[in-house]
């Protein structure tokens, strides 16, 4: 369950974050203000609270029984939250690229899409990889929040087992699981960073 939330959240929030970053940097004042507000909410309130809202609001407010959609709801909540964090990381990266890169590309006849995807974005990726790694590690730990929402998720199962056997062993196992999970993530990201370090 943790792994599924983790992978799907990354899959959705990384591209979504880029779109959000574009919205945030838009010259259209209304769009950029709305996006800024969304980012402020996402970053300013606890993820746990957001998850509870997504999880219980449909039932308490609208009387809908969406229990079959709990997992997708959690993944959507995670993705929308992480997109906000990733958006700010992208924005920082994009703003760090010197204006001269755009100007050189323009004079050499690159169109807007070519300039972004060939010249700007590859440089942005290199700049933001360390921050994305941090965020990714946080995400691994955050997947445990699904626990409070009674997911069939690592800690939940561990706790059930723990109660039955009256032992802290299973909780230790859960802790070790998250640690190993993050260790693998950090390792993979480090490899990616090394790969990007060709210039």
């Amino acid at each position, binding site marked *: 369950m943790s792994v599924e939330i983790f992978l799907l959240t990354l899959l959705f929030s990384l591209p979504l974050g880029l779109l959000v970053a574009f919205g945030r940097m838009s010259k259209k004042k209304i769009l950029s203000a709305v996006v800024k507000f969304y980012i402020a909410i996402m970053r300013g309130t606890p993820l746990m609270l957001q998850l509870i809202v997504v999880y219980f609001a449909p039932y308490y407010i609208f009387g809908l029984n969406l229990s079959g959609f709990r997992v997708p709801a959690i993944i959507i909540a995670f993705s929308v939250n992480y997109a906000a964090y990733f958006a700010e990381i992208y924005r920082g990266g994009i703003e760090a690229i*010197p204006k*001269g*890169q755009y*100007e*050189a*590309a*323009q*004079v*050499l*006849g*690159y169109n807007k899409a*070519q300039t972004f995807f*060939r*010249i700007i974005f*590859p*440089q942005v990726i*290199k700049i933001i990889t360390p921050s994305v790694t941090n965020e990714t590690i946080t995400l691994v730990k955050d997947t445990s929040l699904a626990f409070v929402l009674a997911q069939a998720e690592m800690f939940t199962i561990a706790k059930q087992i723990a109660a039955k056997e009256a032992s802290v062993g299973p909780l230790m196992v859960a802790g070790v699981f998250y640690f190993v999970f993050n260790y693998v993530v950090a390792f993979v990201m480090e490899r990616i960073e090394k790969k990007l370090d*060709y*210039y």
Partner: protein
Amino acid sequence: MENRTILEIKNMRKSFDGIEVLKCISLTVHEGEVISIIGPSGSGKSTILRCATMLETMDGGSLMYEGNTAASDESGSIVYADKKTLKKIQGYFGLVFQSFNLFPHYSVLKNITEPVVLSGKAGKEEAKERALTLLERLGLKDKANAYPASLSGGQNQRVSIARALAMQPEILFFDEPTSALDPELTGEVLKVIKALAAEHMTMVIVTHEMKFAREVSDRIIFMENGVIHSQGTPEELFNSDDERLKAFIGKLEA
């Protein structure tokens, strides 16, 4: 003998935040001409090049390359040509920046070939051949696979000149091509530009290197406060009695 006109700027005006930094600049460049623009910092030299290369939109006047109108005044407001015409015009000129602006994530070779291929000026193979020939000529043959960060400033600037030349522009603009370099590295870049002048490459060069400007230019333009204060052959300008011009040249030569 009057060569073909490559660039024609008439009454170019440009303001930033209500302050007019270019006032009525007119400049015609013929094929094979080498023109240097000199003048104090802030006089508008870069802005001329940036308007001519369409990095800035001008506020008034007209801009033409080889008889194609890029921008013109129509009843008091500036009108730029349609996208297709502008794209064509874009191919007529190249610009070498003070700070090179090479693409750091590309090898030297890819910096030069990709623009050529993307613009459809040549296929991959031909672009590569062109690039290698240029690198050889500029003494950078062994740097084809290096990345810009591993090169000296002088080498980077020569690569950026090669990148511009590979597009085979009709006219090449330089904005202080040696100002970001350590003094001992300016020579190698100036030598390259001199070699281009000897081949009658059409060039407009903003520079503070007075000796170089004197040697290489057919015509020198002295800018001050957004206007062309005076212009003429190197001999005319360097022997001028004009107080401001004398003061400016004297300061740089001292």
